[in-house]
């Protein structure tokens, strides 16, 4: 029931906010904020209350019948992994409500409806342990996201929104086909119709079949992640979305792809995944380098940040398919920290855009002299992005590389070069936008307290994750160990 609340609260609050906005927009904002805080508190209390018991198995399940004809249940459960991502979800959710406080003026009620529904959908993705429900939530989060981009986005929003939607839908449908294939295979083997995750684990199938079905899942997650070659929706969507949309896209939506790999691709198809692992790792490394190179070439600030996601999520992919505790832990760490650091960069870019109405770096420069806090914060997150030790991203990426090294020295070395590449774009960002002469004579207000609070929270979170990531690692530890057990050859 508690888990259902995590989804239901934002859903209900979304409707409420919509209704409330008719008479007071501020009320709608407060409703959204309170809903997010409530969810965050709930997730946090779940985490704290189970922290000492460890996160060995599913717990706090919600299990209701839904479509019994096909063995579809409304079945939610959490383990360490999902709990971590849920906390991230609601943390970033809170932040995205806060950053929209002034930015969104038009149809604010509808905006909050969409915002909260996306978060509900994402929470559903992280909670669902019924494959149908998972797919349902997976698709569900796209629609409000589409609206978020299409209605409140920037100049080229329509193109970006449609592109985003089609990419994710097509890949999602391929996953649906794979889910159904698995479902029928399971039915053939056992005579039972079930979409339950637990039931489908260990479904017997021939290597060829397993590979195809695995690929079906992989493609869906690869688009979200995004794996290079399938990534081109991302820069457009991130760039055109409003700030809250970018934060959620980078911070959470991409993570659903990685989560899917961890939750489904590896456990359901261990053999195919291990055969495929070298390719996936190579794709990850390609993403790291290619994304970084692209980020380096951009002049649109948001686009630059968007491409860094391609690069960072390359580490996640590399880590997942390196498939040992170190790398898996690293991947999860990277997911969380990337969510915060890139999210924060989007917040800052959004704040800057609000002030100077351009994202073009050629039009910036010298912002530091007029808005030192904003610029300093940007520097901080740029450093996080380039993997400065002491900040969260470093822990994740280092662990990934450490783990990946045991699988492939060459790929790891290339990926390490990716960290070097990160220096290029991160420093370029700081240099071009915030440093240099203030040729355009910008005079802009520095961060207001609300923004300062948001940024401060994120800085604190990153420092905490960078210096004392143990709680995170411990939470995921048992799940990681289980995954590692599955790796063939273990």
């Amino acid at each position: 029931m508690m888990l259902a609340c995590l989804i239901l609260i934002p859903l209900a609050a979304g409707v409420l906010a919509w209704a409330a906005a008719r008479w007071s927009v501020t009320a709608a904002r407060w409703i959204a904020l309170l809903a997010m805080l409530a969810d965050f508190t709930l997730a946090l209390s779940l985490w704290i209350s189970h922290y000492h018991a460890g996160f060995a198995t599913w717990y706090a399940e919600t299990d209701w019948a839904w479509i019994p004809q096909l063995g579809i249940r409304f079945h939610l459960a959490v383990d360490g992994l999902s709990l971590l991502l849920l906390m991230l979800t609601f943390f970033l959710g809170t932040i995205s409500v806060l950053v929209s406080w002034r930015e969104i003026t038009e149809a604010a009620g509808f905006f909050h409806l969409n915002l909260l529904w996306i978060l509900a959908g994402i929470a559903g993705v992280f909670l669902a342990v019924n494959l149908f429900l998972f797919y349902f939530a997976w698709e569900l989060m796209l629609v409000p996201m589409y609206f978020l981009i299409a209605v409140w986005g920037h100049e080229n929003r329509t193109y970006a929104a449609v592109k985003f939607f089609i990419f994710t839908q097509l890949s999602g449908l391929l996953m649906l086909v794979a889910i159904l294939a698995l479902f029928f295979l399971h039915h053939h083997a056992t005579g039972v119709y079930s979409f339950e995750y637990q039931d489908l684990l260990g479904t017997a199938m021939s290597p060829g079949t397993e590979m195809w079905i695995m690929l079906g899942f992989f493609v869906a997650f690869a688009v979200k992640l995004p794996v290079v070659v399938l990534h081109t929706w991302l820069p457009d969507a991130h760039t055109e979305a409003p700030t809250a949309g970018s934060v959620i896209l980078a911070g959470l939506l991409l993570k659903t792809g990685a989560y899917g790999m961890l939750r489904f691709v590896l456990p359901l198809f261990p053999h195919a995944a291990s055969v495929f692992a070298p390719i996936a790792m190579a794709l990850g490394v390609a993403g790291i380098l290619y994304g970084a190179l692209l980020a380096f070439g951009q002049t649109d600030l948001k686009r630059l940040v968007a491409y860094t996601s391609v690069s960072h999520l390359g580490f996640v992919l590399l880590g997942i398919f390196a498939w040992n505790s170190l790398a898996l832990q690293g991947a999860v760490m990277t997911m969380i920290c990337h969510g915060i650091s890139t999210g924060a960069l989007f917040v800052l870019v959004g704040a800057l855009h609000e002030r100077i109405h351009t994202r073009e770096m050629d039009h910036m420069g010298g912002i530091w002299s007029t808005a030192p806090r904003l610029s300093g914060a940007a520097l901080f997150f740029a450093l996080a992005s380039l993997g400065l030790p002491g900040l969260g991203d470093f822990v994740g990426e280092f662990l990934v590389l450490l783990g990946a090294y045991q699988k492939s020295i060459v790929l790891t070395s290339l990926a390490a070069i990716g960290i070097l590449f990160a220096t290029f774009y991160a420093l370029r960002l700081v240099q071009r936008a915030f440093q240099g002469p203030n040729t355009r004579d910008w005079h802009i207000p520095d961060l207001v307290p609300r923004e300062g609070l948001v940024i401060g929270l994120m800085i604190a979170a990153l420092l905490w994750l960078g210096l004392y990531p143990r709680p995170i690692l411990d939470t995921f530890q048992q799940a990681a160990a289980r995954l590692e057990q599955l790796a063939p050859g273990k």
Partner: protein
Amino acid sequence: MNVTGSDFTALLPLIILAVTAIVVMVGAAIRRSHALSASLTLIGLAISIGSLWIAAPLLPRQVTPLLMMDHYAVFYIGLIAASSIITVLLAYGYFEKYEGSHDELYILILVATLGSAVLVASSHFVSLFLGLELLSVSLYAMIAYPRRRPLPLEAGIKYLVLAAVSAAFLLFGMALVYGAFGTMEFGEIAARLARPDFNLWLVLPGTALIITGFGFKLALAPFHLWTPDVYEGAPAPVSAYIATVSKGAMFALLLRYFYQTGSHELEPLHLVFSIIAIASMFGGNILALLQNNVKRILAYSSIAHLGYLLVAFQASGDLAPTAVAFYLVAYFVTTFGAFGVVTVLSDGTRDADLIEDYRGLFWRRPAIAAIFTAMLFSLAGIPVTAGFIGKFYVVAAGASAAMWSLVVILVVTSAIGLFYYLRIVVALYSQSTQTPATTSLARPGVVSLIFLSAALIYLGLFPSPLLALIHRLMPGLI
């Protein structure tokens, strides 16, 4: 052969439809009143639906060789009659703004509905053919109903000629099959088909010609060219009727004919169906891609949707009839919703059928825009809408039969299809300078829209009651 009282009861829903048509005609003869005719029609349709419960205990029952009243038929008759109610509600508001007499329309709707009901219950070539013609002949007049306007006339003539041609093909095909088997009853055909001594050289081409006839009605490629023109030309409620009732009844019949006779098991026909399905999915979606007319988009999308259904049809496992039934219900609701929006926004002079008409609608009429969005998402198969569950079932049916290539094509083409639905959605939400609308919309249309969207969401979230119903009714088929 005598028709007994029980047969009579079993046929009650059909009889009521026929009687209503006559009552409306008589009513119109006495007093020409739009409201009266519409109310009489609605009452008749409601009674007809009600009589399904009277008929149900007697089922399944073969009433003369022509009609098989079983749960399958009852399900679809109910669906068809309900759809006709929606059509009447939409048409009432639509034609209210329109000069001229409207009573004939309701008679035609009733006759067409009777034809559709006969189609879904038919177990014989003759009833098939007569049901089809009842439907077609009424549709000719319904399409061209506002006959002084050039587009309905054009659409009516096109539909008439092409329907007649395809009916001729169908008849010729049936003649060949009859020649091969010496029977026109589906059950008998199945029995003959099971024996090896029939004349395959007549059966295959004959069935292929029958497929032509079906394909025309279902607007499957390559028999689809008429669809956009007719949808565009016909009044919006009639387009909705063609898109739903006419196609739904035909598909139900297709399923019954092929499943009952087992003709779809013939290997070459499998190929024919596959090609048709693929061509429809690709053709429909590609054709709609950059189309600017909403009615034409819906027409093209219906081509694609029937292609999807054909995939489920071919799966022919346990899931297929369920998938088709659910999909059709979802499709009916959605299509009525979409055309309903077009209908209520149309004024007396022209249909609101250009994407431009919808630009910024969200800022003018948020509720209507939201409904339209829901309908479009349902067509696209996005969760929370009935269309999602429908598509899920169709894909599931395809997957259960391991028809991977068809399923993948379905998936890919439906992703292409997203684009044009989104084009409309984009228009709905784009900023517009127009001020919020103040004029009120036709109430019956709005009421039905609200009902349809409620049904859409309900089916999308809680499909299991309907699925349970389908499961209870469907075993009669196979």
